[in-house]
């Protein structure tokens, strides 16, 4: 995966089945956000070799809106302010396009506690936690087949993290698979019981994939670079 002439991420092979939660962790600059953007087809990120396969179809070159229609959704790490677009009306438009049941929408609204944000312009004059929760709401709202969540926990308080963890649980129960990107371990701990695998990205390469108990204690004890030197032999 490249940004211009520069290769950002290489040698990644992750398979996600239905209703699974996979966590992708790594230090700042390890390529986590770039990887999600490349999967979604967001410019200027580009997959230069390999494939993005979705339900047996090669969607590598598809533009983001077609991927979204297939059921791939992304929660952006820093969603842009869109003045003039009212959050509630935007949510209604997504509900209309994707034909979502109202009860599911209400469940997410209550879980994430974002109902009071619906009369505001998208992400305008919102705190970090409000922006993250609203973006997660708009992402999970469409009941995607797979949700790519890019650091929903960065810069937010513990209360917001707990609300978002509950929302991920709701999404998993409704049939959504989730790929959660983070560089903190707190939210991972909140979701521990639902995690299928934890993947560690370091320097643009996958250095480790394993169960929660195999990976998280190692990272906690030695940090990312310490874990890498201990692994010496490459991805496990």
């Amino acid at each position, binding site marked *: 995966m490249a940004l211009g002439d520069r290769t950002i991420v290489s040698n990644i092979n992750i398979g996600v089945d239905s209703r699974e939660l996979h966590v992708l962790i790594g230090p700042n600059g390890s390529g986590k956000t770039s990887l999600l953007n490349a999967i979604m087809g967001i410019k200027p990120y580009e997959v230069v070799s390999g494939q993005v396969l979705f339900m047996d179809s090669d969607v590598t070159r598809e*533009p*983001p809106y077609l991927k979204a*229609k297939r059921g791939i*959704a992304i929660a*952006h790490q820093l969603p842009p302010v869109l003045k003039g*677009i009212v959050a509630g009306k935007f949510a209604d438009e997504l509900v209309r396009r994707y034909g979502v049941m109202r009860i599911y929408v209400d469940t997410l609204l209550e879980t994430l506690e974002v109902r009071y944000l619906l009369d505001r312009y998208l992400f305008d004059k919102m705190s970090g936690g409000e922006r993250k929760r609203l973006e997660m709401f708009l992402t999970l709202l*469409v009941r995607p087949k797979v949700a790519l969540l890019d650091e929903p926990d960065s810069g937010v308080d513990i209360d917001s993290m707990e609300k978002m963890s509950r929302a991920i649980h709701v999404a998993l129960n409704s049939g959504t698979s989730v790929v959660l990107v983070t560089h903190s371990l707190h939210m991972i701990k909140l979701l521990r019981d639902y995690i299928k695998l934890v993947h560690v990205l370091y320097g643009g390469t996958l250095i480790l994939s394993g169960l929660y108990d195999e990976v998280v204690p190692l990272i906690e004890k030695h940090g990312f670079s310490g874990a890498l030197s201990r692994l010496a032999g490459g991805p496990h």
Partner: protein
Amino acid sequence: MNRDEVLKALSKPSPYGPDVDLSRFDIGSSTPESVDERSVERITDRLGISGQVFRRVDYLQVNESVVAKAMSEKLVKHGAVVLPTREALRKLNWVSAYSWKLIEPTIDKYTAASYLYGRESGFFIYVPPGIKIMEPIYTCLFITKKNYAQLLHNIVVVDEGAELNLVTGCGVPDQPTKSLHVGVSEFYVGRGGKLTYTMIHAWAPEMVVRPRTAVEVLGGGEYVSYYVIYSPVESLQTYPRVYLRDRAKATLNSVVVGTGNSIYDVGSSVILKGGESSGEILSRNLSKGSSVIYARSRIEGAIGPSRGHIECLGLIDGPSAVIESLPEISSSTPEAVLTHEAAIGKISEEQLSYLMSKGFTEEEARAAIIKGFLSIEEPRLPHQVMEIVKRTIEYIASRATG
């Protein structure tokens, strides 16, 4: 008024906008005409008030002919006075106290031409003290003739504690008419009164448009305007002035969408002449094609305490499009708090990417961004009027991406 001075002003250009040779237009003639209803329907379609035109519009003037006057019945039942300006000046002595008082005929060649040759064509409305007419009044001023000069003089007086919500659509059929529109409007809002004035313009290439508007708002009164222009023109220049007395408020909203090779010189100014008065100017400017938009705004703080704010935003969507934003704040008292913000940019790739990742095609995403950019919420306008404005903005956004 010294007629010789006004005659001299016929050669006086406006300080703003391109100068126009008035001899291009048939000024002062008064030939009888028949009104082509299909042309009228085409214009109302473009103004977002399509269908049942004669039932919906309360006052319709085509060229010089007044076609529909339901406005009179609607307003008179509330005790208001509604007359053609010429008739009002002839029948009611006191009306002259409001005529050519806020706008001097000698300001420039357009006001001079209106004064000398306009024969006081236009409408006069007086709303007596305490009468609140909440139902919006729709007026339309159309041009269907070529090389024609439509010279109008409208006077609106909303007396103490009264309220009026006026909507004016001005336009031509969707084809070049090479005509001139000068609308001189003098609005007076009495103490504690309120006037909302929404104006939507749908002109065509080769049209020259020079509205001249001035408003006086007395103590505790309020004036809200919402102006939308989205059609091509040869040139359009306007710079309304609003004078606010003690505790008076004004909000001037404008949405200018430039297309073709048109030149739009659109300003708004508020003069804070009373203590605790406040004014706000909000403008959204979208320049497409090779259009040029001059977005002027000025707030003068003459007395304090008073407040004023200008927000002027521009979006350039074309390699030859130009926006020049000229916000000015001027104060002669330390107690006036005046602020402004101005920004010009292009449609953000980040915003496009975001919406596309939510399932919008690029075209849908662009339309949504443009619609959001142009939308200025104005809760002080009646709901029905805001719906017309929103429909117009939606129409603009859907065409802006084509």
